[in-house]
């Protein structure tokens, strides 16, 4: 935009103007982000119904979790189907520390996040030696082992789960009996944090390395990219934010048991929005979650009570449609029209 208003100096090399255009595009993205997030922060004041507020909270929470998954799965190309493990770690750290030791959830989330990042590094050591499908399978198996361990570990409640005590409304303990707005703002804050980290990574050395690893690990290595360390770093960042999301979920629902925070469906739910919206993009996870979560929640609520399974049929149809029509995700629809527009304008 700025380049059109300036007199185009013919002497400037093409790379410099490209760099300027890129920097302008980055600034634009940041500005759009700020406007979008400010608008979103006002949403719960427009939607006063607690049920719909709950849908909004879940949407933003899954957007944040899917964006966390996207850091490893989308940018670095390592498809993990075991992120429920990190989610569960965050939920359990937060719950055990709060219920048993009285540590406020903020501390529990941070501890859970750091522990998850540590676990991701430990698991990455053997697992990142596996490529492609083998890596994905390993992540599924490890998450299932985690689920079994928690199931049989009495200290963390075993199969009985952990019940959060009733507490007066407070930001400190993250407990609000009826008010949903604070939960929405926490979830939005988490999403903004993950989004911003992703934004920073996109234009950092790590970001370029990760995308190189995703495109072709061998070629990247031959150019000096440290493939193994790239994967490890992406896994740690991704696990950290996933665990914070898990801690938030525990505080929000106020009760956790192994199945309700560590079952395999969570691993899928973290991957789906990003895949649906556009994998490896800044906005894909949010777009995917904004379509997927309201659709599943509202269809279950208003059609699920009949027992006909119509809500699940709708869900399956949508995923199939996107997979068939736009395998790159919903965002690619807009991308293509913009490219087409530019091409028309070019000559």
């Amino acid at each position, binding site marked *: 935009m700025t380049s059109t208003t300036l007199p185009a100096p013919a002497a400037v090399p093409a790379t410099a103007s490209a760099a300027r255009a890129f920097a302008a595009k980055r600034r634009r993205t940041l500005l759009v982000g700020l*406007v979008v997030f400010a608008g979103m922060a006002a*949403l719960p004041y427009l939607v006063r119904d607690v049920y719909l507020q709950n849908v909004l909270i879940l949407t933003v929470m899954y957007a944040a979790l899917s964006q966390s998954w996207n850091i490893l799965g989308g940018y670095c190309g390592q498809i993990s189907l075991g992120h429920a493990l990190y989610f569960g770690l965050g939920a359990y750290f937060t719950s055990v520390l709060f219920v048993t030791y009285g540590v406020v959830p903020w501390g529990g989330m941070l501890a859970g996040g750091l522990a998850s990042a540590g676990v991701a590094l430990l698991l990455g050591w053997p697992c990142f030696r596996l490529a492609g499908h083998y890596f994905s399978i390993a992540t599924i198996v490890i998450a299932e082992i985690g689920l079994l361990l928690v199931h049989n570990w009495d200290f963390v409640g075993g199969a*009985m789960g952990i019940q959060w005590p*009733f507490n007066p409304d407070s930001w400190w303990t993250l407990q609000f009996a009826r008010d949903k707005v604070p939960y929405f703002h926490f979830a939005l804050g988490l999403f903004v944090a993950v989004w911003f980290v992703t934004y920073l990574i996109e234009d950092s050395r790590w970001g370029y390395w990760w995308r190189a690893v995703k495109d072709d690990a061998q070629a990247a290595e031959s150019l000096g990219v440290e493939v193994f360390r790239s994967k490890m770093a992406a896994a740690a960042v991704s696990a950290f934010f996933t665990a914070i999301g898990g801690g938030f979920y525990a505080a929000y*629902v*106020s*009760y956790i048991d192994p199945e309700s925070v560590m079952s395999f469906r969570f691993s899928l739910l973290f991957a789906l929005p990003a895949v649906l919206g556009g994998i490896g993009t800044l906005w894909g996870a949010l777009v995917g979650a904004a379509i997927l979560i*309201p659709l599943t929640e509202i269809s279950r609520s208003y059609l699920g009570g009949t027992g006909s399974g119509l809500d699940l049929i709708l869900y399956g149809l949508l995923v199939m449609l996107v997979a068939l029509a736009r395998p790159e995700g919903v965002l690619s629809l807009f991308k293509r029209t913009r490219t087409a527009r530019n091409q028309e304008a070019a000559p």
Partner: protein
Amino acid sequence: MIRRRDLLVGGAGALALAGAGLRPARAADEVVVGVLYAMSGASAQVGVDARHAIETALDIVNADHALDLPLAKGTGLPGLGGAKIRLVFADHQADPQKGRAEAERLITQDKVAALVGCYQSAVSNTVSATAERYGVPFVCADSSSPSLHRRNLKFFFRPAAHDEMFSAAMFDFLDAQRAKGQTIGSVALFFEDTIYGVDSANVQRKLAGERGYKVVADIKYKTNSPSLTAEVQQLKTANADVLLPTSYTTDAILLTKTMAELGYKPKSMLAQAAGFAEKVTYDTVGDKLQGLISRGSFSLDLAAKRPSVGAVNALYKARAARDLNDNSSRQFMALLVLADAVNRAGSTDGQKIRAALSATDIPGAQTIMPWKRVAFGPDGQNTEADPVLLQWVGDKFVTVFPDSAAVAPALWPMKA
């Protein structure tokens, strides 16, 4: 672009809501009750059966039936000028988070006067916590985890027995057999590794110690194991007077088959329902389980003691094409107990219904259950919900304990 989409989604939702609000205005002659079950997913069958059972109870309340049950005669709730009950069903998919969200929706959008549910104990946990926060009574029909009524909730009520009451009944029965001159000195625990199995074994171990039964085998096994050969060898070596299995269907069948293969005939078996209450288990290995005794909440032969059982079962069967069982009988009773309280409260106000529920006193004869009475303690648990023990004889279950519900004496030891 995204902003617009979010607005659209929010707007569409808001419109849907506005539409919901425009449904025929709820007159004072209607009491809305929310019902939460898993209507889809792995345990959808339970939810579908629950729907039929609760709709059967609804019909008994709303229409005129010549039965000795609360509110059967006449139509609707006389305490509210003949108001009818309307049910709103919600699907929680066995997920505590979804249960919580659906409970909130039923309370704030459908303005339900009370909630009934939820089968899975984990879901009943979050639903009852939500009900508590909004001051809406929750009648727990069929979740049997003892932890549920120990949370100091004011709006939680459970007419049916919890797991510890079931285990206590099993040991009461063993004591009774001893009093009749049987020598029962040792028991063997055999349980699966979930909340259900572990909880059951913990209580049984404690009761065995208290009442002087020696635990000669204490075996936890992995649910859905491919083989139980090693475990059965241990059971055979211990050869306890009574084998106490806690297993779901596939494991119950595998256990029975493995015992037959290894030539182990337990002297007697006293089972914690689940797999040993399932029809499919007896279709498969019923011949090897002759004389097995299982605990239960309900039995069709109660018709001999509770005259309404036959008629209610016929009404239910017309809807569900199957007989009432442990779960559906409890779901049926949950709505009747609630309707009785709403009627006495003469109001749809949560506090008033809660007070009426606390004052509930329904004699056992006016239920379809073996219960002595329905009367809630301060924790919301009905302490007089006696379980029954059923013995598999020939090709059907016979109620053998307690004496107030028994139709035949127990055959002891079992003759497999």
